[in-house]
């Protein structure tokens, strides 16, 4: 057993490894914890256990479009949003027009995916805190979204559905009714979730005042998405830097309020996700109303994309936060460099800053509340 003497307290400290195989590290994250009793004095995250060479692959592909399947596999919980970011980056760089109908379908798919991703994130968070049943209820709801996706794209998890300036294929005729049906059945479930888990006394005691992330620290670490909003910052790229057709929809940005504890604690981050699901439903409803019934799903573009020299950084709001693609093109048919700015990567780096002095059980709660996907952290 490795033991060190703490400089501050003089107690003997114990170094313990959490992961890469641990039930609540959400994959293959390894945390090196220095413990004084059960209190954590130091955390060192070690990543790279799922480094799958995405950026190398992006350079090696002989076509810009061939990168799309690999973006899926980055954040496998929200594959659609990853594709969305990448195709938008390419379209903005190449200044391509996207058909109206495509934009609407994309927004609907992306918001459905956001709900699915949050369902998994919230469920896994509950599971980390020992609430097993809510996890399975949420998974059942998620399956309904996957059914819609499966009917449209043919896949359950990794879709490869968006293409540059279009979609791989048109949606099926019942797409609208299926989605509307889902929206109708899902809304009451959010209330049920709040009754079962969000306002559960034990759940609140486990998450309130834990892992508080102040606004200033959040900006310094470039936090984004629900983690930043949990700290009370009204910042959502769909509103602040609109892409696609998000400026046409009416929706609110839910932020943390410190309702049950301190502003920016684990519960706030959790609740932001719950409220975001409602807003996504609103967007889906509006998009279903506005979606044209007829129209092309592919713009007339050359089969093989050849870009000029230049570079661009485009960011979109993925369920986990700001997903940025920094693409550098030379005159060849493949990208010169693609860097994916993954929100999970950034959020994981702020873990040591917010978890010092907490207990092991809190550590689990904090990791769950920032909702990381290791595929995206390691890429």
């Amino acid at each position, binding site marked *: 057993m490795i033991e060190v003497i703490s400089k501050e307290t003089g107690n003997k400290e114990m170094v313990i490894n959490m992961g*890469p*195989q*641990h*039930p609540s590290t959400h*994959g*293959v994250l390894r945390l090196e914890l220095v413990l004084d009793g059960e209190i954590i004095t130091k955390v060192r995250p070690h990543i*790279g*256990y*799922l*480094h*799958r*060479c995405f950026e*190398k*692959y992006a350079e*090696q592909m002989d076509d810009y479009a061939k990168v799309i*399947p*690999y973006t899926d*596999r980055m954040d*496998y*919980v929200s594959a659609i949003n990853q594709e969305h970011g990448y195709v938008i980056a390419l379209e903005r760089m190449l200044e391509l027009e996207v058909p109206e109908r495509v934009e609407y379908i994309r927004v609907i798919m992306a918001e459905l995916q956001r709900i699915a991703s949050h369902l*998994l994130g919230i469920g896994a968070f509950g599971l980390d805190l020992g609430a097993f049943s809510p*996890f*399975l*209820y949420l*998974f*059942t709801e*998620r*399956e309904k979204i*996957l059914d819609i996706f499966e009917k449209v794209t043919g896949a*359950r*998890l*990794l879709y490869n559905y968006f293409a540059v300036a279009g979609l791989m294929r048109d949606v099926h005729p019942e797409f609208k009714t299926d989605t509307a049906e889902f929206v109708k059945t899902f809304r009451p479930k959010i209330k049920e979730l709040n009754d079962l888990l969000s306002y559960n006394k034990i759940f609140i005691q486990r998450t309130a005042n834990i892992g508080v992330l102040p606004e200033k620290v959040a900006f310094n670490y470039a936090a984004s998405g629900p983690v930043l909003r949990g700290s009370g910052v009204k910042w959502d790229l769909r509103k602040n830097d609109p892409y696609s057709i998000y400026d046409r929809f009416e929706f609110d940005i839910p932020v943390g309020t410190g309702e049950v504890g301190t502003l920016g604690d684990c519960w706030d981050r959790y609740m932001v996700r719950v409220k975001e699901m409602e807003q996504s439903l609103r967007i889906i409803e509006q998009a279903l109303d506005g979606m044209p019934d007829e129209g092309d799903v592919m713009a007339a573009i050359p089969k093989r994309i050849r870009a000029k020299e230049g570079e661009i950084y485009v960011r979109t709001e993925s369920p986990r936060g700001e997903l940025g693609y920094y693409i550098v093109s030379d005159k060849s048919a493949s990208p010169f460099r693609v860097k994916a700015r993954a929100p999970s990567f950034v959020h994981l780096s702020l873990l040591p800053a917010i978890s010092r002095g907490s207990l092991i059980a809190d550590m689990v709660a904090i990791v769950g509340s920032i909702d990381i996907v*290791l*595929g995206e952290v*390691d890429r």
Partner: protein
Amino acid sequence: MGMLDKKYHDSNIIIVGLESALNWARKNSLWYEQFGLACCAIEMMATAASRYDFDRFGIIPRSSPRQADVMIVAGTVTMKMASRILRLYEQMSEPRYVISMGSCSNCGGPYWEHGYHVLKGVDKVVPVDVYVPGCPPRPEALLEGFLKLQEKITGETILEKKESEQE
């Protein structure tokens, strides 16, 4: 396996009965090691969740490798992770089985060509019993993999050595 081996080599009825009972127990209580690597882990969770329900077949997760019978390698195995997987396998108690879930752990999958940091097939470090193809495999496919593993266990004998071990 000394005396027993010689004495009852010709399919004694008691031994056969005992053997099939033990095989029946082993195949019906496959507890899997609860660890996921990548995308396939999400499908593994979906298989354990309410719609597909692993528990129907008596398959439940255990978080400690000591109590697990089968390791599902669900996802891409990287060079950094390979040694950990080997160690987890070594920590499991016999009899143990390995299901390789998804193309990545079968052969490297989409990361086969330029994946400098991806192990091209988990069978390079641990012996695999069942390969489940797909990227990621559907939950039904994983269940099928388990049924195949059950078939394999049914054919096992405790007294005679496995064909693969006879050399």
